[in-house]
């Protein structure tokens, strides 16, 4: 049976520009997801299929893997924030028994990985592989490096001062401001009846993935296999093949289970290439996993932000003018832009000026909703301050200026579930232990594409779905099994899901909340075609009907109009004869979309004697179109909220200005929230199944920090304009309030 192709239009919006493209997709005669209400798997709560494997410790992560004869790699990193390597002597390290390979910056192939010019403390200088991790570490410490120390700067504000050490040779530390404007802010502010002006600050935030970065590299006959803890097997394959100058086909990347990435594992990482280089030199596999300290200083971060904001409104709350001047640093990678013109709300006159700053710090990289939490913190804080100045309910001010109907509905829904009407109209006293309520909002894109999948029905009835995506821990495997089980009328146990291997049909990286919206349509299309092709082998001969007239349910295949005409799934598969049925499908439009708001309401408790803030209750309202599995979805929302509390109350990279090192590259002084800090979280779904699948990874993280800050203000009148909201800042804000 030939499945016909049809042309469909794809509309993409990127940075305000809309592009239309036409693509050919298989025509299965079915459209949309249908009504999931009556379905057994799609849209239903199902425990993840690898749950038992995970909780019993049988799931093997890259960190757990061992290959025969495998060596352990370590990277020697720059001891200074900026330095030139004058001399390296690795002779003592080489003489240490057990050391099998050493790579220095001048070695062949190492130039792009190992540095003679170091621009941040932690940059790669040399690497070593040895028979044990301990020997590798000892060897690393035996490599003698002589540096010439050079002037440096690690803070964005200092880097903008005249005379600051220059980070990049070819450009100044501060970029030309990128300006985005509309209307005339001078006119706007002149028309404003109430204005608020304030400075907001957010700190550099690191990913703290439970599993650190790393890989195992294995060469065999010039072909490279890499097991990597990665969010992007395809990009890793491409990057490594380019690095080593070998065809893509000679690089295979495998990732089974992984302990999170949050954006920091989206591409070919330098440490993967180092491991592969060591493995090639040693002639045996090399495993190289980073330490927690290396994670904090080298694998990426969310840039900080300094935002000076002025907002003006009419007395009725209608926004008239908005100005934001912001800068921030992504370390040696610069880029620290944040979205918004302005963020979320409609303002007739605005001007936004952004400056990216280079510093001698580790490079920024994507971190859960890049830019958005920074934007949300300042915008949602200033909206709260404006509401106080207007003597209005901050929710009312938001609703009046929010052009997004979905978000307005979500705010209404959340306010009701939360009990926003019980919020005190003015802040509580600056004494004792006080509770307060705050809200925040955000927006994210999501959306999918670029994915192929393969379905295999074996003659014995067993089923495989193969897709070169990866499950970063969110439950992708489970969603794939759900779609296939639904379509084939089988159970989740009947579906063998094979992902995380570049030998399977390609998919994109798992970033930007795009995986579910990319993979689900591709799998749906694949299994639909597989089902049609299977039915085609016997529909007419056995039942005298067209394959479209058959249905698969509860392990049976039957004629829709006469269910008594049926056979078991195994009998149906047996019609294939000796050969398995192999079908490739692809992402098709109409099953997913993008663009989702997020809203949170938070209640906090502030101890005004100590400045300690506890989040006691959160109502998180999210939408992501058709929710494939509410149980997994809620997990994502919970995770986003928890990370948001960490961002709002605890987490920050702290750099020593004089030495240029991070002082808290650990989990003691870089605080992520613990079990005791977990509040009651009510996850509310704003259902829009008609929109198809949209990702949920990022949106629930965005509104948390400003909602906390606003709740702290409501509790005790302490306006904290910098996150994390640590006790010292709360005490200072309380003192400011008392002084009036």
């Amino acid at each position, binding site marked *: 049976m030939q499945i016909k192709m049809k042309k469909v239009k794809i509309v993409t919006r990127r940075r305000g520009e809309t592009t239309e493209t036409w693509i050919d997709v298989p025509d299965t005669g079915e459209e949309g997801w249908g009504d999931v209400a009556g379905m057994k798997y799609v849209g239903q709560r199902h425990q993840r299929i690898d749950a038992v494997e995970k909780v019993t410790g049988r799931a093997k992560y890259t960190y757990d893997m061992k290959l025969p004869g495998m060596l352990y790699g370590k990277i020697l990193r720059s*001891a200074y924030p900026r330095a030139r390597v004058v001399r390296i002597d690795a002779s003592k390290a080489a003489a240490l028994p057990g050391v099998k390979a050493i790579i220095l910056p001048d070695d062949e192939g190492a130039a792009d990985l190992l540095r003679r010019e170091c621009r941040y*403390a932690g940059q790669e200088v040399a690497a070593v592989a040895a028979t044990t991790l*301990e020997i590798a*570490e*000892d060897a690393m410490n035996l490599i003698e490096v002589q540096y010439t120390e050079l002037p440096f700067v690690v803070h964005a504000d200092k880097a903008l001062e005249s005379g600051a050490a220059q980070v990049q040779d070819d450009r100044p530390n501060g970029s030309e401001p990128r300006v985005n404007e509309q209307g005339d802010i001078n006119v706007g502010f002149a028309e404003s009846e109430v204005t608020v002006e304030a400075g907001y600050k957010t700190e550099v935030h690191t990913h703290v993935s439970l599993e650190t970065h790393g890989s195992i590299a294995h060469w065999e006959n010039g072909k490279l296999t890499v097991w990597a803890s990665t969010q992007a097997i395809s990009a890793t394959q491409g990057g490594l093949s380019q690095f080593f100058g070998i065809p893509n086909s000679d690089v295979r990347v495998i990732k089974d289970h992984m302990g999170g990435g949050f954006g920091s594992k989206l591409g070919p990482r330098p440490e993967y290439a180092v491991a592969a280089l060591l493995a090639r030199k040693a002639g045996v596999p090399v495993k190289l996993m980073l330490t927690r300290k290396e994670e904090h200083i080298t694998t990426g971060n969310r840039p900080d932000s300094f935002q000076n904001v002025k907002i003006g409104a009419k007395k009725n709350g209608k926004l008239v003018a908005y100005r934001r001047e912001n800068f921030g640093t992504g370390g040696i990678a610069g880029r620290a832009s944040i979205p918004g013109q302005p963020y979320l709300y409609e303002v007739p006159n605005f001007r936004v000026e952004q400056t990216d700053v280079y510093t001698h710090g580790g490079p920024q990289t994507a971190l859960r909703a890049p830019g958005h939490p920074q934007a949300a913190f300042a915008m949602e804080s200033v909206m709260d301050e404006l509401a106080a100045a207007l003597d209005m309910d901050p929710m009312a001010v938001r609703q009046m200026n929010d052009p997004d109907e979905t978000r307005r509905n979500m705010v209404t829904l959340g306010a009701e579930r939360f009990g926003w009407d019980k919020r005190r109209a003015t802040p509580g006293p600056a004494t004792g232990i006080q509770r307060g309520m705050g809200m925040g909002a955000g927006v994210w894109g999501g959306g999918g594409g670029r994915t192929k999948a393969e379905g295999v029905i074996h003659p014995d009835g067993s089923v495989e779905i193969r897709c070169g995506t990866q499950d970063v821990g969110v439950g992708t495997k489970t969603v794939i099994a759900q779609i296939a089980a639904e379509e084939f009328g089988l159970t989740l146990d009947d579906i063998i899901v094979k992902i995380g291997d570049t030998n399977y049909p390609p998919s994109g990286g798992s970033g930007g909340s795009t995986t579910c919206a990319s993979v689900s349509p591709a799998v749906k299309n694949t299994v639909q075609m597989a089902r049609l092709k299977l039915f085609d082998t016997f529909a007419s001969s056995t039942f005298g009907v067209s394959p479209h007239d058959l249905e698969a349910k509860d392990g049976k295949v039957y004629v829709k109009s006469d269910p008594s005409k049926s056979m078991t799934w195994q009998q149906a598969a047996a019609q294939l004869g000796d050969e398995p049925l192999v079908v490739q499908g692809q992402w098709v439009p109409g099953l997913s979309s993008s663009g989702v708001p997020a809203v949170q309401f938070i209640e906090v408790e502030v101890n005004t*004697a*100590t*400045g*300690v803030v506890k989040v006691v209750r959160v109502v998180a309202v999210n939408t992501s179109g058709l929710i494939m599995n509410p149980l997994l979805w809620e997990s994502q929302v919970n995770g986003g909220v928890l990370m948001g509390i960490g961002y709002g*109350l*605890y987490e920050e990279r*702290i*750099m*020593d*200005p*004089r*030495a240029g*090192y991070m*002082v*808290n*590259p*650990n989990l*003691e*002084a870089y*605080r992520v*929230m*613990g*079990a*005791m*800090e977990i509040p009651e979280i009510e996850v509310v779904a704003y259902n829009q199944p008609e929109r198809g699948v949209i990702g949920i990874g990022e949106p629930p993280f965005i509104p948390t920090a400003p909602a906390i800050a606003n709740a702290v203000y409501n509790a005790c009148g302490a306006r904290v304009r910098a996150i994390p909201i*640590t*006790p*010292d800042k709360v*005490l*200072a804000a309380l*003192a400011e309030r008392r002084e009036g």
Partner: protein
Amino acid sequence: MKKFAYIDATSVDTVPSLLGRRFGQAQVLAGGTDLVGELKEYIATPDRVVNLKSIPGLDYIRQEDDGLKIGPLTTLADIETSTLINDQYSVLQQAVSAIASPQIRNVGTIAGNICQRPRCWYYRSEDFDCLKNGGDTCYSVRGVNRYHAIIGGGPCYIVHPSDSAVALMSLNASVKIQGPRGPREEMLDDFFVLPELNIMRENGLRANEFVTEIIVPASKPNTKGIYVKVRERDAIDFAMASVAVTMTMSGNTCSEATVVLGGVAPVPWRVPDVEQFLQGKQITEDVASAAAEMALREADPMSDNSYKIEMTQNIVSQAILDLA
């Protein structure tokens, strides 16, 4: 981690010679929750690690006529849950239950908690060659000193990390110490040393000495104690500020008090002036605030830690009022 020899000690008497006379050459291992971190970060680089857990009988809690005796290897969890420890020592149980996390309390020992090394992020990092690591700079002075000392600092500004030591000092506890010439006993008041006296150590243990018992004298009737600890998270975190207060009350008049601050000084910081001030006073809000102010009179904060003054004052007055 540097390579070291691992030695199982078999008796208290043999430990001093296994430790040797030079600091840094050997380390005692009890619970290991502090030592392992120091070893991994190359902060401690001993040639020998002397395991004390192989010595039988160092793990006990005994109520005797003259007070409470606690073996050095008694775990924090055992102290936390012991029913042998009666109410007069509840400040100790309060402090111990505020240490770290259940997992760490299951392993960490009381002597280890008292003798643990500071958490200063400059000291704990191999990137900084700080005074305490044998270098010539205290980086906190012009660096990031949010968690550093506001009292008693200089030239190094660590804060003492132990919760239990603060409580024990408020109970007038002492420690029994084994050295090459046999045991000696020292009040906790005298046990800890300021950096101006010895920058490399936080207590007066010599290289070949170790703590073999904690002795807590019986307190007077009608004495109650309280431990208040401020931390950002309710587990794991060390104190930003803490206070242990004991008061012997007759009616609402305080006849005797002890007040010890934690998290603000390089040693558990006893404030005798405040103790005297409280003696014979009826406890009112004014008295409590005056005591709190007096407790921090000597505070001399750095760039980032002046918040600790108000925070500590607030918990001192709160603790006093709670006991009255």
